[in-house]
Structures are given as C-alpha cells and as structure tokens.
C-alpha cells in the first residue's frame, strides 16, 4: 500500500498539536470560501434560522428563572481554571480511582493512538458491531472510520447522529449534529436508508423518532460493546458522567458487556461537588431545559449492574498544546453546550460545515485552530464579527472574542514573510502613531474624491480587498476636510 504520509502537524511551544491525516479538525477550504457556498443554500439558511431562534428562546427562558445564574457561571469558570492549573494531578487521581473500581485506564497521545487502542479493545471482544453514544471526542479523532477500516459495523445511536450517518453527511452542530436538516429531509433519508421502514412514514417528528427507536432497538439488545464519550469525570471518586436526552446513552452505558469511554483530558473535574455547578449550567445552556431527561454516572464496574468491563481512554490530541497558551487555554473550559453556536450570527447563516471541523461556531473558531496549530485553521479566528453574543451566553464565561483576537495575532506573528496586508497595517500603524504622518494619510484619502468625480459615493469597481466592501455596500466619497480641520477652523486651536 502506498499511503501518503501527511506532513507532521505543527508544534506549539514544543508541544505537538493534533496530527494531520486523521480525524475531523481541518476543513478542505478556508472559511470564507466554504461560507460562500453554504450561504447560497436557502434551505440551510431557513432550517438554521428556525432552529437557532427556537433554542435561543428556550435557553433565555430557563436561564432567566435561575436567580444565581451569574454566581454559578463564575463558579463554573473558577472550577475549570482550578482544574487546568492542576490537570496532571487530577488525571492521576482519576486513573487511580477508576482502576480501584475495576476499570482500566489507557492514555492516548493523539487521534491515531486513541483509535488504535479502541480498535484493539473492540477486536479483543470478538464482536463485529459497536453501538455508540454521541461523542465529540470520537468524532474529532475519526474513530468510526478507524473501526470501519478493520471491518467493524459502527452504529451511531443518537437520533441526530443517526440522521447524519444514514445520510452520509457530516455533523454541523455540537449538540444537534443534523440541525441543518429539516423534517422533510430527514423523512426522505429514513425512507431511503432504513430497511423495512414503515412506507407510511410521514415527516412528523414523533413518527421519525419512533422509526429510529424501532431501527435501533434490536441493536441495543444484542450489542456487546459500546463506545461513549464523557461530559465529566470526577477525579476524587472516579465517577464518569454522560448527559443525554433520548435514552440511547443509557442503552449503551447499561446493556453491553464492555464499555469503552473516550474522553479528552480536559473533561476531568476535581470533586463530586463540582458537578452541582455543571449539572445546572449545562442543560439550561444546551437544550434549554431545566434538566436533560437522563444523566448517567458510574465509577468503574458495578457487579450485577451494567458493563462488567470498563475502559477509559484519556485523549490528548493537541489539548496540551492548547494548555500551553496562557490566553487560549480557556478554550479547554468548554462543556460543549453549544449555546455560543445558537446565538452566533455567523453560525446562524453559514451553518457548521463551513468551519470544516467537528467543532463549529465560536467555540470551534478558537478550539480547532489551537488543537491543530493556528496555521492549519488560519481562517477560523477571523470567522467572527466579534459581536460578543457568545461570551454573553457561555455558561463558563469563556471570553471567546478576546481569544479570537489573540489567535489572529498569533497567526500574524507566526508569518515568516510579511504579507501585503501586514505591510499595509504596519504603514498605517506608523501613520497613526505620528500625527503629522496621519494628517498626510488623511489628505491622501481625499484622493478618493477624484475617483468619485462629484458623486456622493465611490464607484463599486475596486480591486481586492476594497472590493470586499464595495461589492455589496456603497462607500461614501471622502469629505474635503477632516473633522479636526473643520473644528479648528471654526474654533481655533
């Protein structure tokens, strides 16, 4: 086999980022290019507009009824910061507790290593089928592809993940991966791909959910191995937690003989008490419910109840490189609620696919470039108008706009050769640092009046980058005098 070896992933402060050639953290085109296609998809725009407006309203309602929301938010932020400051110690404690309760802990430096560990564990059981609980970490590392490559059948069991899998699509939202599909499109996918589906199936969401129930029921009952992610892992007790709605998670966490949980190292929390904060913040921020229908917690193995073999895979895959950035590390505080996606005016219009990573939206725009090294996702930090709506709703108060700005600077400062943009900004900076030079530049701007030839706006035909503006917006003709000149003439110095 002549597989092409992807170039090595970049290194940040001596720490390796997520490797290239595996997983789903990198897109094939830049955000502006991908967005250009997505923005033309009227159905997508309508679906997303409807869905995000619905969830925004629900979230706002259930958050408003919590009188101590801001205190919970501050506590959530502090717990996460405290966890990161002692991450190594908490992971060692977690490992000790899980092991003491009959589980086995594995460590994975990156996606390839995690995929290899899980594949070997599944193969050791002799099964050919794996049921999966929706998990961002396994999406990130491309686990399904790795398992399928050795001939295993992988069944996503979350309804939205199932829609994506059956539609041979990719997820576009952290919480609702099929948010870009409407009921009619989902009905079409089910009718086409589910064997023996009721030919009378309509696009009623209840009927569609029931079709999924029927389709998966038998697989749950015969499954011998399940793979899950984890929302939280408690270092002091070894307690793992999965937060879900449909009961597919409970099926996977309860019925098979073997459970394999893949978890990013940043998901650990120090104490059981800490969950009292996150179990209030997460459901209200994500689905806009007071509490999600099901939260399961388990520590190791319980005789006579649930899987009798439990493996925990602790995944780095670029997380330690994120941790090394004192500003950017706050991105590791994310609890994957997706509230930032739902309020983001950019996400609402482009959808998640434009981001090219399993982590879309504002959090994706700061997380993906850090996991891969900013040069591999260089357009993402710019995929925001910095409106700040994401920061406002983040349940752990991640200052996403400030991190976006920080990553833009990291990108600019990493450039080997100055770009035309950099030269322009440097010249402008010099001018704005010296009043006499600045007045010269302002006088230069007045040359625009020649181009305008007496009209109130400039013509729309300009070369890039100005064309970016003038393609859709008129640019006013510069005035004859600046404000400072006018004022000084009227009032003296």
């Amino acid at each position, binding site marked *: 086999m002549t597989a092409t070896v992807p170039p090595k992933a970049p290194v940040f*402060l001596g*720490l390796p980022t997520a490797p290239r050639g595996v997983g789903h953290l990198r897109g094939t085109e830049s955000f502006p290019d991908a967005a250009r296609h997505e923005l033309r998809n009227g159905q997508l725009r309508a*679906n997303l507009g409807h*869905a995000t407006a*619905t*969830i925004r309203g*629900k979230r706002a309602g259930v958050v408003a009824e919590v009188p*101590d929301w801001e*205190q*919970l938010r501050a*506590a959530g932020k502090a717990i996460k910061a*405290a966890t*990161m*400051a*002692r991450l*190594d110690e908490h992971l*060692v404690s977690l490992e000790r507790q899980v092991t003491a*309760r009959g589980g086995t802990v594995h*460590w994975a*430096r990156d996606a390839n290593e995690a995929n290899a560990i899980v594949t070997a564990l599944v193969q050791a059981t002799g099964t050919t089928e794996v049921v999966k609980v929706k998990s961002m970490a396994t999406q990130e590392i491309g686990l399904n592809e790795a398992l399928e490559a050795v001939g295993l059948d992988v069944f996503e*069991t979350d*309804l939205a993940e199932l829609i994506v899998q059956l539609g041979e699509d990719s997820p576009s939202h952290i919480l*609702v991966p099929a948010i870009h599909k*409407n*009921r009619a499109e989902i009905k079409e996918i089910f009718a086409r791909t589910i064997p023996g589906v009721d030919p009378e199936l309509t696009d009623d*969401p*209840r009927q569609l*959910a029931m079709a*999924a*129930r029927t389709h*998966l029921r038998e697989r749950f009952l015969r499954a011998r191995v399940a793979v899950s992610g984890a929302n939280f892992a408690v270092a002091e007790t070894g307690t793992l937690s999965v937060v879900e*709605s*449909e*009961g*597919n998670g*409970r*099926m996977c966490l*309860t*019925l098979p003989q073997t459970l394999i949980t893949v978890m990013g*190292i940043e998901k650990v929390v120090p104490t059981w008490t800490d*969950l*009292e904060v996150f*179990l*209030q913040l997460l*459901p209200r921020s994500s689905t806009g*419910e007071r*509490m*999600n*229908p*099901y*939260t*399961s*917690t*388990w*520590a*190791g193995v*319980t005789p*006579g109840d649930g899987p009798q073999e439990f493996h925990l895979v602790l995944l*780095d895959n670029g997380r*330690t490189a994120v941790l090394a950035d004192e500003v950017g590390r706050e991105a590791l505080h994310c609890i994957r609620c997706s509230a930032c996606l739902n309020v983001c005016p950019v996400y609402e219009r482009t959808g998640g696919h434009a981001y090219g990573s399993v982590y879309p939206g504002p959090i994706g725009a700061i997380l993906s470039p850090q996991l891969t090294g900013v040069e591999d996702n260089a357009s993402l930090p710019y995929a925001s108008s910095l409106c700040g709506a994401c920061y406002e709703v983040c349940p752990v108060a991640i200052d996403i706009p400030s991190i976006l700005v920080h990553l833009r600077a990291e990108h600019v400062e990493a450039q080997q050769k100055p770009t035309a943009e950099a030269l322009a900004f440097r010249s402008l900076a010099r001018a704005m640092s010296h009043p006499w030079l600045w007045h010269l530049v302002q006088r230069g701007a007045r040359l625009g009046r020649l181009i305008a030839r007496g009209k109130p706006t400039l013509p729309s035909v300009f070369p890039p980058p100005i064309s970016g503006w003038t393609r859709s917006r008129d640019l006013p003709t510069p005035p004859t005098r600046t404000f400072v000149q006018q004022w000084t003439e009227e009032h003296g110095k």
Partner: protein
Amino acid sequence: MSAREEVLARIRTALGEDRAPAPAVVRDYRRAGDSPADAALLALLVDRVEDYRADVLRCGPDEVGATVRAALDRGLGEGWTPGTVVVAPGLDDDWRPDGCDVDDDRPAVQLADRAAAVTAVAVAIAETGTLVLDGSPTCGRRALSLLPDCLVCVVTVDQVVAGVPEGLARLDPVRPLTMISGPSATSDIELQRVEGVHGPRQLFVVLAG
C-alpha cells in the same frame, strides 16, 4: 516513554515550572442545607415533573400500593397483566401490586419484554423535576428503569430536596446513578421536543406522604 508519562510530561511543560496557583472557587450560589419538604416544595416538584409531560399521582403514606396500581392502570390500561410488570427487588412489599414479577439476576435484556417497571428513588430534586435512582435494591439495577416502556417511580416526601446541590449531596458518587427528568425525549428534529425515544415513553411519579 509511555503515553501516560508523555501526556503527563506535556501537561507539566504546558503549565511551566512556576505554574500559577489554582484559583479559589467561590460557591456563593444557592446550596441551602436540607430544608424540610414543605407544601410549596412538593408543589414545585409536581409542577416541574408535569412540565416534562410526566404524570404525578399524590397519595398518603399508606396508599402507595393502590396508587401504584392506579398509575399502571393509566400507563398500561385497566386490566393489565401483573406478570408483565417487574419491580425492583427491594421494593416495599406493600407498594408492589399482587402478582408482579420481582427483578432477579436474569440477563438484563430480558427486561425488554416487560411492559412496565416499578421502582423507588434515592432523591427527588424539585427545582428541576429530577428523580435519581442509585442502583440500590429499592431502585433496582439501571436496566430495570430503562427497558420497560412504562416506568413508575415512588417518591416519599422525605426524599424531596429543593435544588441540584442538595440532591447531589445526598448521593453516593461511586454508585451507578441515573438522573431522570421526565420521559425520554429528543429535540433533534428542528429542535422540537418529542417525548419518548429509547427510554421509557411513559413516566409516572407516585408522590407519597
């Protein structure tokens, strides 16, 4: 170097030699101690559970058995067969309808052909309408409250707390816990909530006392 050693070494590198001290966590959110379950708290629990479109049946401490039967009447239709109902092994004898099956160490998947299950709970959280089952004999193993399509949970008033912090404080974190807030549900299609997917499609809460 093993993956374990390497990941731990990377973390130490990332945090640096002179790592910043962990910030203090201020817990000034509501964590009130156990308050007695007064009428308002119980009303809140009922309101929140019903908001998830689960049914609540209230009864006196001595009427639990009859109320459980009434719940099963609603869930399965009158004239249900006792043998299709399975109860947690430690469930109070007075609460168990006559002729019901008691869960034993049969393979969990066999519970899938039972129509309904009856369990107690460990804690009920009023503000979020959450029942917590802890795998003890009265609550049963996790599959019991998962596979039968109709679930009846008996809550006694002394088990009701106001908020999540009080609820978690009463629980043992190393037991397998299941927190249940209404019937299984999904919002995956156009973010419209649909009750009833893989877990029980019907949830009845018998609130006793």
